[in-house]
């Protein structure tokens, strides 16, 4: 029983509310498949059959129950196989249990057939108890059906009042911000000279190819006389781009970087082992 039947599609769509009153009594011939849809799975069907033995659940005859169940399922199979998968799994298990109960005892067998039967009985008792508890719950005097709260309560209201706070400085500041924000302004977007990462990469790769010795990163920058040297902003941009380009080349295995101390000069050379790879 521990192996729960696989997800039974039969129950996926079960409506949580009863949309319709219980359907009209079915004719005998196809009673079973109609009822199958009304059962909440094999355990529920077993519980119903057990209840029909009209004895305490603790004293039901498991063998009799198995026979009744198998009898039902034989007819169900003929009717609507696809709905009955879970019921069939249970039927197979019950048939197995029945054979174990009837055959001579195998003392080695774990768990014993009696244990399996007892567990089934315990499960039925528990489901039965909850089914009954649910029915008793539903039969209570229920608020909104049998007993009623006040129909037109005035309602309790809590009004929240705000005491607003601000001081003169806030006011001045706010006015200043408004005036400053809406003062006519002319925006001139200056063109800034930058060295792009791509051009730094190209420049660095080209210069690195020329020598195998360690060289200071600064020596790769545009030198006096080259275009852009005059512009300090461009020099800063070139330094930043060259630094990033150096990191990128190192990452690609094309260059080696060394720095002897924190904030010390960054030195750079072509990766020794990589010459071939670079060429390739």
């Amino acid at each position, binding site marked *: 029983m521990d192996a729960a039947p696989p997800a039974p599609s039969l*129950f996926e769509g*079960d409506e949580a*509310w009863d949309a319709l009153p219980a359907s009209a009594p079915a004719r005998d011939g196809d009673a079973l498949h109609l009822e199958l849809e009304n059962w*909440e799975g094999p355990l529920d069907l077993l519980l119903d059959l057990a209840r029909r033995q009209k004895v305490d659940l603790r004293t039901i005859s498991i063998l009799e129950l198995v026979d009744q169940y198998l009898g039902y399922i034989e007819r169900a199979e003929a009717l609507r196989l696809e709905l009955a998968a879970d019921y069939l799994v249970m039927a197979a298990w019950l048939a197995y249990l029945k054979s174990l109960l009837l055959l001579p005892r195998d003392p080695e067998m774990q768990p014993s057939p009696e244990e399996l039967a007892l567990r089934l009985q315990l499960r039925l008792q528990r489901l039965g108890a*909850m089914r009954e508890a649910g029915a008793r719950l539903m039969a209570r005097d229920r*608020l909104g*059906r049998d*007993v009623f709260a006040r129909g037109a309560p005035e309602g309790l209201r809590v009004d929240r009042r705000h005491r607003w706070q601000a001081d003169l400085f806030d006011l001045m500041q706010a006015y200043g911000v408004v005036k400053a924000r809406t003062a006519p302004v002319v925006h001139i977007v200056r063109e800034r000279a930058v060295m792009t990462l791509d051009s730094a990469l190209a420049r660095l790769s080209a210069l690195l190819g020329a020598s195998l010795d360690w060289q200071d990163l600064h020596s790769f920058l545009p030198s006096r006389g080259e275009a852009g040297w005059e512009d300090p902003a461009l020099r800063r941009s070139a330094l930043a781009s060259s630094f990033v380009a150096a990191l990128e080349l190192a990452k690609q295995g094309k260059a080696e970087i060394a720095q002897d101390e924190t904030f010390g000069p960054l030195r750079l050379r072509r990766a020794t082992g990589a010459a071939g790879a670079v060429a390739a």
Partner: protein
Amino acid sequence: MTPPDDLARAVEATLFASDRPLTPEEISRHLGGAAVRAALVALQRDYAGRGVELVERGGRWHFQTAGDLAHLLRRETEDVRRLSRAATEALAIIAYHEPVSRAEIEAIRGVQTAKGTLDVLMEAGWVRVAGRREVPGRPTIYATTSEFLAHFGLSSRRDLPGIDELRAAGLLDPVDDAYALLTGGEDGDRGREPEKEDESS
């Protein structure tokens, strides 16, 4: 009716006017911090036997019509549609075993519980998510609400019909525990491990 004192009148008026059940703390806060328990008990006594009574449900108080007048007042409205068997059983299992995970509900019912079933119970306001069980998979666990108690006229879960008998008979224990008990207990530790439950919500 003997005229109530000022505090009892105020509590009476507050509960009458409120559109939902109130805890003593809420009433007290509404009335500027007065101690209201004694007044609640006095009011409950005042109304005993009348057509309207004062009841406590899960720590919240409200007035409602007397149960024995149900035959005069009963209405079958949209709100009180019949729950399906699946939902009724799931609700009973949650109420009697709470907090429980969906897997535990399914273990008792022997079938999968459609997602919609728990949704309906939560939408009705009767069931809430009560955190997660601290076991592998950290399954969501469910419990009932004070609206559940109010709807079914229960002061607390101890009032659930037959809960004492069910507990005494071991019918609220897992099958493994019951089995171990019946067979001499050599399997006694097969049952549920002691678990930490996260009741944070």
